[in-house]
């Protein structure tokens, strides 16, 4: 039987009316109802939303810790929090913000938006996607449960040995840190392979690599950076655990190990980590700037190349975290030059965005306000970064509050401001309702003023001698007034976050309805309804330009010829997005949750005994068998070339329909 003959007996979307098509697709793409559906879903949007909400929850928890630390530091020799708790708090704060908030929130926004921007129906590996979320959730719960039972890590988010090693790291605290990292790295790597595969192989037909939106480019660069950097820290944290648990001596200099080895491995991951957080934010800025300037970003190619350059250069700078360790001077100079160089791609992007906004008189709605604040604050962080690249300057301000100021200007100014902008921008797509402008302005101004009040004085504190990671400081150092100012700023940030939460709560109930494309934006996520149906697009779009919804304002060319009785997506070629094959994606499944539960048990258990790996392999194996158990006899692959012999090419294009 040829493919064409087989196809005669199967339901296709060709020629179906809108209502009929919707009913058929909801039948094949919808989740089971109720709690069961919630547990088994493999839909990227549902998973991404819970991912984002969880990440924002950890952001709030990390923020509360920061607020408590600011109260402790508000005046010299304060007795509010003792050193033991304080050291746990700054460690959990840093670990939360980096591993449980920043990376996951950026990846999960990508996991929500990217398939929509690409005009496809799900990510490439939906079950793996669900597994990634559950691992991340359990990892975060593990960290906070440990913290609440006084076993929170207390060795800093960088966990330097020997302080975190078997001799000096007390109890299980450093193990909790190392294993939290393992949890979140598994989740991050899962997200990264999703993004790479989805972006390279599942773009709508016609979306050549040159027509890919900048946000998608940003997520692609980020995903590759995750894939190349995170193994270093997985390796390092595993070596730390075995040093602590079974007495290997990777980091013990007395037995031929090296404590500097840890720093190399950690920062080989740790510096790209900053760009893993920052590059998606670049994509968000590009998206919002395009929409509000109402023209394509000036220098699309230059921005793409800049992001890729950032992705490469980001791996060549890690030693600038280690200038004070006494490495050879000439080597240090190399890393100075490399660190300076990264300002060039950042500069190119900033200049291109300003050129895009120049003379466009954009409407100053909340998303754009956050992007303008991004310019105002991130550039300060970038310039202090240039200062830190210089070896002599770094030797003075390294490990002081100057660096605390710098990193918050880069990460909050460079990533959290665009993130807020992106949430205001995409909230209507996700929920169908707009966020309020009035509360949005309160949110924005409180955050902007509070942020600068908190972190700007820290530059000066660092220069006048205040080191990082101190739970107290003597009164006669003169650091009191600036610290008090910073604490007041932190209070404003807390108010701002309350305004944000109130805004979301109110908008979810009473926000004005958004419609499909409230910002009149140009990318494909706005071509479908808000919120999108489970199948994203009734008919997959066909892309003819970089700005599909602006170039074809009234109609959009779409693709027909996909089956409606199963979860079918179109696989396309890497460069030209030519249709290659119709691919069936898996149904909802409980196995990802089961796999995450058994993996979590093994990971937690293994900080107590190495036998956990041996015994734990048994349930993991059982779950994997369940995961991969074939449901029914596989159907032959429907490759597109197959259909050349048959009646109609599958799929084919249909003009004049809105996707």
């Amino acid at each position: 039987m040829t493919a064409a003959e087989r196809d005669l007996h199967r339901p296709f979307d060709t020629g179906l009316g809108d209502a009929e098509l919707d009913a058929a697709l909801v039948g094949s793409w919808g989740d089971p109802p109720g709690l069961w559906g919630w547990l088994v879903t493999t839909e990227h949007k549902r998973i991404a939303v819970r991912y984002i909400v969880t990440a924002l929850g950890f952001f709030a928890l990390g923020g509360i810790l920061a607020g408590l630390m600011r109260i402790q530091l508000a005046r010299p020799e304060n007795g509010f929090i003792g050193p033991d708790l304080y050291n746990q708090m700054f460690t959990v704060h840093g670990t939360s913000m980096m591993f449980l908030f920043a990376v996951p929130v950026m990846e999960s926004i990508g996991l929500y938006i990217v398939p929509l921007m690409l005009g496809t129906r799900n990510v490439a590996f939906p079950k793996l996607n669900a597994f990634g979320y559950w691992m991340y959730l359990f990892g975060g719960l593990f960290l906070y449960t440990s913290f609440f039972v006084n076993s929170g890590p207390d060795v800093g988010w960088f966990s330097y040995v020997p302080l975190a090693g078997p001799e000096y790291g007390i109890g299980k605290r450093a193990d909790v840190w190392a294993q939290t990292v393992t949890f979140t790295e598994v989740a991050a790597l899962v997200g990264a392979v999703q993004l790479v595969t989805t972006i390279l192989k599942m773009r709508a037909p016609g979306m050549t690599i040159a027509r890919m939106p900048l946000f998608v480019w940003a997520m692609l660069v980020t995903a590759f950076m995750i894939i190349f950097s995170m193994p270093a820290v997985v390796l390092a944290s595993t070596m730390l655990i075995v040093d602590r648990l079974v007495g290997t001596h990777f980091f013990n200099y007395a037995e031929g190990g090296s404590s500097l080895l840890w720093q190399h491995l950690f920062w080989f991951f740790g510096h790209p980590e900053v760009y893993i957080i920052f590059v998606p934010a670049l994509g968000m800025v590009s998206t919002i700037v395009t929409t509000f300037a109402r023209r394509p970003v000036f220098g699309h190619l230059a921005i793409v190349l800049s992001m890729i350059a950032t992705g490469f250069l980001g791996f060549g700078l890690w030693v600038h975290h280690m200038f004070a360790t006494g490495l050879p001077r000439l080597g240090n100079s190399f890393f100075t030059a490399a660190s300076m160089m990264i300002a060039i791609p950042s500069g190119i992007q900033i200049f291109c965005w300003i050129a895009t906004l120049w003379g466009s008189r954009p409407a100053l709605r909340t998303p754009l306000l956050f992007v303008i604040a991004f310019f105002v604050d991130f550039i300060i962080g970038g310039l202090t970064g240039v200062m830190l690249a210089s070896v002599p300057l770094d030797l003075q301000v390294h490990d002081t509050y100057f660096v605390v100021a710098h990193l918050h200007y880069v990460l909050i100014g460079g990533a959290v401001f665009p993130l807020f902008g992106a949430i205001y921008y995409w909230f209507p797509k996700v929920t169908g309702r707009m966020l309020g402008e009035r509360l949005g302005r309160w949110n924005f101004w409180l955050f902007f003023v509070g942020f600068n009040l908190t972190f700007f004085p820290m530059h000066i504190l660092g220069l006048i001698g205040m080191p990082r990671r101190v739970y107290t400081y003597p009164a006669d150092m003169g650091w009191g007034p600036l610290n008090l100012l910073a604490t007041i700023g932190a209070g404003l940030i807390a108010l701002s976050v309350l305004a944000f939460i109130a805004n979301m709560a109110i908008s979810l109930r009473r926000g004005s309805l958004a419609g499909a494309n409230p910002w009149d934006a140009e990318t494909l996520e706005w071509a479908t309804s808000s919120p999108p149906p489970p199948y994203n697009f009734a008919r997959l779009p066909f892309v003819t330009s970089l700005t599909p919804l602006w170039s074809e304002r009234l109609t959009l060319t779409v693709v027909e010829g996909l089956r409606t009785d199963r979860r079918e997506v179109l696989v396309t070629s890497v460069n030209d997005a030519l249709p290659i094959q119709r691919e069936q994606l898996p149904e909802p499944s409980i196995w990802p949750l089961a796999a995450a539960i058994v993996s979590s048990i093994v990971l937690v258990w293994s900080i107590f005994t190495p036998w956990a790996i041996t015994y734990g392999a048994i349930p993991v194996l059982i779950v994997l068998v369940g995961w991969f158990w074939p449901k029914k006899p596989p159907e032959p692959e429907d490759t597109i070339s197959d259909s050349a012999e048959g009646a109609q090419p599958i799929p084919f294009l249909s003009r004049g329909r809105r996707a």
Partner: protein
Amino acid sequence: MIARTVVRLWPAAGSILLLAGCSGSQSALDPAGPHAARIESLWWLFFWVCAVVYVVVIAGLFVGLRRGAGRNAPETTPDPTGERRRVGVIAAAVAATALILFLFTGASYLTDRAMATGGAGDPSAIHITLTGHQWWWEVTYDDPVPVRQITTANEIHIPRGRAISIALRSPDVIHSLWIPNLDGKKDLIPGRDNIIAFRADRIGTYRGQCAEFCGAQHANMALLMVVESGDDFRRWQEEQRAPAAEPTSDEARHGRDVLLSSSCVLCHTVHGTAAGGRTGPDLTHVASRATLAAATIPNTPGHMAAWIVDPQRIKSGVRMPTNGLSPPDLQALLAYLRDLK
């Protein structure tokens, strides 16, 4: 001449900009030696260039936002002359960025090179070994004649104008020596031999602090760097080389017995007595030091008493245990320690 004036004006104007007075006993902007001074001038170069860059870029953004008229329909085919002008401006801006970065890299490299010369290789240099412990500093003045070595804690005396070379050691975790008025920081790493070399040109007492997180009491691991004249330094050295002073009163003599019969001797040394512990600071000349507990509290009888009785209250997590001494014994011990000048 003009150039020199400009250089001098930078810090003055900068201090106003930075709101706070930048002088202080632990400030990178109040140099007391050539290394810190070089870094400070480099800082002001970076600061002013970056400030100008920042103002120009942000002004460009806000001018751009206020120009032109809004458009209703999105622009998908841009006007070619406008595009060409933009390409020109961006190319110029990128070229300027690259040039500035080149200037920065060059200035940074030259400063680093200038700081690398002298110091450890100087034959007249004073050699000190600084050992970081959780959470105090052990200071040893090297001398070819072992008996002339000096061991003290949390206080380094150096003569003005001489090259100083400090070998940095750590037997436990990583610490970092940072005395911002004199030089940048350098880590004390177990298993590695780092050296920091610098010179101090201004008499005074400068505070330094551990800059690498080293555990519970990282915040209270400070030290004092006392820069004095050559004569004062020699006098200090001679005093430190002497064995412990004999007690001057009956009470102090009783105090010595208290010390020698208690657990103090397990960790502390008092040269000339049986106390020879090496885990804690050397107490031979403890009364000559300005502070206690790694520059955490001033060295007054009251603070000393509080520290001996319950160090955990002052520095929780510190390795020194509480000591349940009877009041007369405590008074006697304090009298003895006061005599250890």
